C-alpha cells in the first residue's frame, strides 16, 4: 500500500494531512505530485519529451527549418580538399564530410537512438519480467535454473558479442536466414540480450518478497491459478519498479548503441546515428568541430535527461513503498 506523509501533500507543521484527501489520490498521481516539486526532474522530463517530439516529427522539423534530408549530399559545401563547411544560414549546424546537413542528421539520429533504445529496453523488460516472475514465484529448481541462466548472460562480454556478431553476420545474407546482420536488428538483439537478465534479477527479487504477502495467499485461497496470481496479482505491483528501471536502462542503451555505431558495427551508413557521426567526425575535429560537438551534445543531453528522470522516478516511486 502506498504510504503518505505530510510533506507529500505540501502542508507544513501547522496542518495535518486530511486522510480523505490523500487516500483519494492514485499512486500515479502521487508520483506526479512528488515529481512536480523536483525542478531537476521537471527539466529532465521536458528534455525527454522534447527529444521524443523531435524524433517523432523529424521530417517536419527538417522541412520547417529548410534543411535538406539527412542523406542529401552536397559537395559544393566542401572545400577543395574535402573539408566540410561550418554553421551558416543554410546549414544551421554545418555539414559533414559528405556535405550532409548536420542538423538534419542529428534530428534523424534521435529517431534511431530512441527507437533502438526503446525497443531494446521494452523487449528486455518483457522478457526479463517474465523470467523474473517465474523464478521468484516458483522458486526451487525453476528459480535455480533461471537464476543461473541470468548469471551466465550477465557475465557474458556483451561488447565482444556485438563485435563478433556484426563481423560474422556482415557477410553474404547475414545470419539466421538474413534475420541477423549488422544494423538495426543486430543492435536491438544485442541490447535485448544484455538487458533482460537485469530486469529478470530485479523482478525476481521483488517477486520473492511479494509472493509471501497476504494478498497472494488470499488469492490462492480463493482458488486462483498460478497464472492468475502471476499476472493479475503480482505483475501490477511490479509495473512501477520495472518502469523506473526501464527509464534508467534507456540512456544506457542509447550510449551502447552509439558505442556500437562508433565502432562501425551498429547502425550502418548512410543511416544517421549519433555514435557513427562522432566516429566520422574525429579525423576532422580540428578543422570541423561542429561535426563532433553537435551529435555529441545531443547524446549527452539525451542520456543525462533520461538518467535524471530515472533517478527522480526512483525517488518518487520509492517513497510509496
Amino acid at each position, binding site marked *: 500500500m502506498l504510504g503518505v506523509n505530510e510533506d507529500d501533500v505540501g502542508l507544513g507543521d501547522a496542518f495535518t494531512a486530511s486522510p480523505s484527501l490523500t487516500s483519494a489520490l492514485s499512486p500515479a498521481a502521487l508520483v506526479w505530485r512528488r515529481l512536480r516539486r523536483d525542478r531537476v526532474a521537471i527539466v529532465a522530463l521536458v528534455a525527454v519529451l522534447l527529444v521524443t517530439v523531435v524524433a517523432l516529427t523529424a521530417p517536419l522539423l527538417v522541412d520547417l527549418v529548410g534543411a535538406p534530408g539527412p542523406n542529401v549530399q552536397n559537395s559544393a559545401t566542401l572545400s577543395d580538399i574535402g573539408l566540410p563547411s561550418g554553421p551558416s544560414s543554410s546549414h544551421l549546424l554545418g555539414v559533414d564530410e559528405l556535405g550532409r546537413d548536420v542538423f538534419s542528421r542529428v534530428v534523424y539520429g534521435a529517431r534511431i537512438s530512441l527507437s533502438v533504445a526503446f525497443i531494446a529496453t521494452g523487449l528486455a523488460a518483457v522478457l526479463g519480467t517474465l523470467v523474473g516472475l517465474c523464478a521468484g514465484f516458483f522458486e526451487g529448481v525453476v528459480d535455480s535454473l533461471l537464476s543461473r541462466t541470468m548469471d551466465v548472460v550477465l557475465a557474458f562480454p556483451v561488447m565482444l558479442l556485438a563485435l563478433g556478431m556484426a563481423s560474422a553476420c556482415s557477410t553474404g545474407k547475414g545470419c539466421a536466414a538474413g534475420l541477423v546482420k549488422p544494423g538495426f536488428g543486430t543492435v536491438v538483439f544485442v541490447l535485448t540480450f544484455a538487458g533482460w537478465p537485469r530486469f529478470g534479477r530485479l523482478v525476481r527479487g521483488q517477486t520473492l518478497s511479494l509472493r509471501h504477502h497476504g494478498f497472494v495467499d488470499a488469492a490462492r485461497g480463493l482458488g486462483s491459478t498460478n497464472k492468475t496470481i502471476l499476472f493479475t496479482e503480482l505483475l501490477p505491483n511490479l509495473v512501477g519498479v520495472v518502469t523506473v528501471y526501464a527509464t534508467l536502462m534507456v540512456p544506457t542503451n542509447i550510449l551502447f548503441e552509439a558505442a556500437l555505431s562508433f565502432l562501425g558495427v551498429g547502425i550502418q551508413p*548512410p543511416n544517421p546515428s549519433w555514435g557513427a557521426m562522432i566516429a566520422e567526425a574525429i579525423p576532422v575535429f580540428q578543422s*570541423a568541430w561542429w561535426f563532433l560537438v553537435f551529435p555529441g551534445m545531443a547524446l549527452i543531453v539525451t542520456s543525462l535527461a533520461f538518467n535524471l528522470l530515472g533517478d527522480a522516478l526512483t525517488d518518487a516511486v520509492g517513497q510509496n513503498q
Partner: protein
Amino acid sequence: MRWPLVLLAVGTAAAASLTASSSPALRSADAALAHASATCSHRGGTLTVLSNNDVDNIDPGISWDIFSWTYVTYVTQRQLYRSDPSDPARLIPDIASGPPAISDGGKTITVHLKPNVMFSPPVNRAVTSADVQYGLERGFSKNVANPYASLSYNLVGVKAFTDGTASHIAGIVTPNTTTVVFHLTTPTPTAFLDNLLNPLASPVPADYAAQFDKQDPSTYGQHQAATGPYMIQNDSSGKLTGYDPGRQITLVRNPNWNASSDSRPACVDRIVESLGNSDATVASQRVTQGSGMITGNFEPPAAVSEAAATSNNGRDISIAPTTKVWYVSLNTKVPPLNNLNVRKAILAGFDRAAMWKVAGGRFAGQIASHLIPPEIAGFAQAGGVRGPRFDYLSSPNGNLALARTYMKKAGYPSGKYTGSHTLLMYGASNAPETQEAQVIKAQLGLLGLKVNLKIVDRNAMYDKYCNVVSQKVALCAGDWAGVDAYQQLYSPFDGKAIVPTGNSNYSLLNDPTINHLFDVASVTSNTKKSAQLYGLIDRDIMGQAAAIPWLWSAHVTLHSSDVHAVVGGLFGTADLTATSVG
C-alpha cells in the same frame, strides 16, 4: 582492386617529388634533380616509418602488396634490374652488369651478373646465376605458390616443372655462375624484363633456402637472406628477430652490402617500420610533430596534409603522382547494368568531382576521365586529361539531364530507373573509402537505382566478394595500379582474364573487339604503336561504360622536419634507401 600482382615495367612514368605548393602535374626535371641530390644530407640515425597494417607476406617470393614491396622488399632485396629513381621509364642494371642481350626474335634474353653482389649473413657469399634461377623457380612451387608467377613469366618449360616431370624450368639456363639466359614462349622481351623487377625475381640461395621451402607453406620468409643495403634483423642462424607481425619490422644495415656495386646511397643505419597505426590522423600528427619519422602506406587526412603544407614552408610534405587509378566497376552482366544505356546514364550523371573532394581533393590527385593515368604511355592517346570525347564523360560534376536522357533511351520514360532490381555493392570499411561508397550509392540513387551497400573489411571485399564471380557484385569500388598500360587494363577488362575466383575483371567485360586489341597490343614492341593501341583500348572500354574512373591518384608523404625524404617512382612512395635523417 589491389595493386596488381605484376608490377614494374617500362613506361612513360616519371618520378616527381613535389611540394604541396606546386601543381600536381608531372615534373620529371624536378624529380631528376631531387634524386641526383639524394646523396644523403646526413649519414646515420634511425628512420621510423609509420604504416597502418602489416605486410601481406614477409617472404618476397610470395608478397603481392605494394606496401610490402616498396617499404620492405625493395629495401632488402635487389633484382637484375630496377627503375631509375629519377626516371622510372628507364631501367638500370642492379645485379646485372649491363643491359640485357635480346636475340632469337625477342624470345631469348641473356643477362650477365656483377660478381660482387653478396648475400647477407648467414649465407655470406656472392649471388650466382643459380640463385636467380632458384628465386624464380620457387615461385612456381606448391609451397611458395607466388600469385603472379604464371601471369608474369612466359618461360619455356614451366608446365613440365610444375607437373614435376622436370627438376628445373627449361627456359632458365645458367651456362656459368655469372650468366643467366631466359627462353620465352612468345616474343615479349619488354614485358618480361618489366617483370624481372618484381620481388619474385630476387635471387634466393638454394643451398640455404631449400630446407625452408620443403615445408608447406614455405618458411623461408622467416629466414630470408638479403642482397640490398638493409636486411631484416636476424640471429646467427638466419632466423628473423626483427619481424614482430602486426607490430614492427626492424631493418639494419646488411654488413655484406657492397656500396660499389649499388647506386643506392643507404643513408640511415636503421629503419624501423611501425605497423598497426590504424588512426591516420594520430599517425600523421606524430610524424609531423616528432622527429626521424615518415608516413608509410596510408594517405594522411586532408586536414593534416593542409596543415603540413602551410607550415615550415611546406617542407614536411611531398605529393607524388602514382600509377594508381580509382574507379567503380559496373558489372555488365547484372541487370539493369547489362543495359549499355543505363551504364552510360550512370557515367553521365556521376559527380566525379564530389568523389575527388571526399578523397582529399588536390591532395588525392586529379579527377580521372579514363583508365590510363598520366604516368603511363597511352594516356594522351586515350584522350589525355579531358578523356575520350563521349558526352557522358564530358562533365566531371555530372550532368543529370543527360543522364536522364540515357535512362529514357534505356527504356525508362521518366528518366529514372523504375525496375525492381537492387544493385549489390561492397565498400571498404576504412576511411575515406566508406565515405566514397556512400557517395556512389547516393549518386546512383539520383537515377532511381537502388543500391544495397555493405561495408566490410577491405581484404574481404576483394577476396570474398568482388573477386568471386558467383557473388554477382554489381558495383565494386577500388583502385588498380599497373606500371604499363597492359598491366593497367588487361586483368580488369580483357574477357580472357575472367576466372571464377580470384577474378579482377569485375565488370565481366568480354568484348571481342577489345579482347582482340589486347592480343595485338601485347606483342607490339614498337612503343609508339603500343601507346596508340592501348589508348584505343582505353577509349573502347569507356565506350562500353564498363567503369566509372574518378581519380588518378597521388600519394602524400609526410615526414618530420629533420627527415630529408626522397619520394617518387611509379608509386609515389618514399625511397627508404635514399632518405636521410638529421
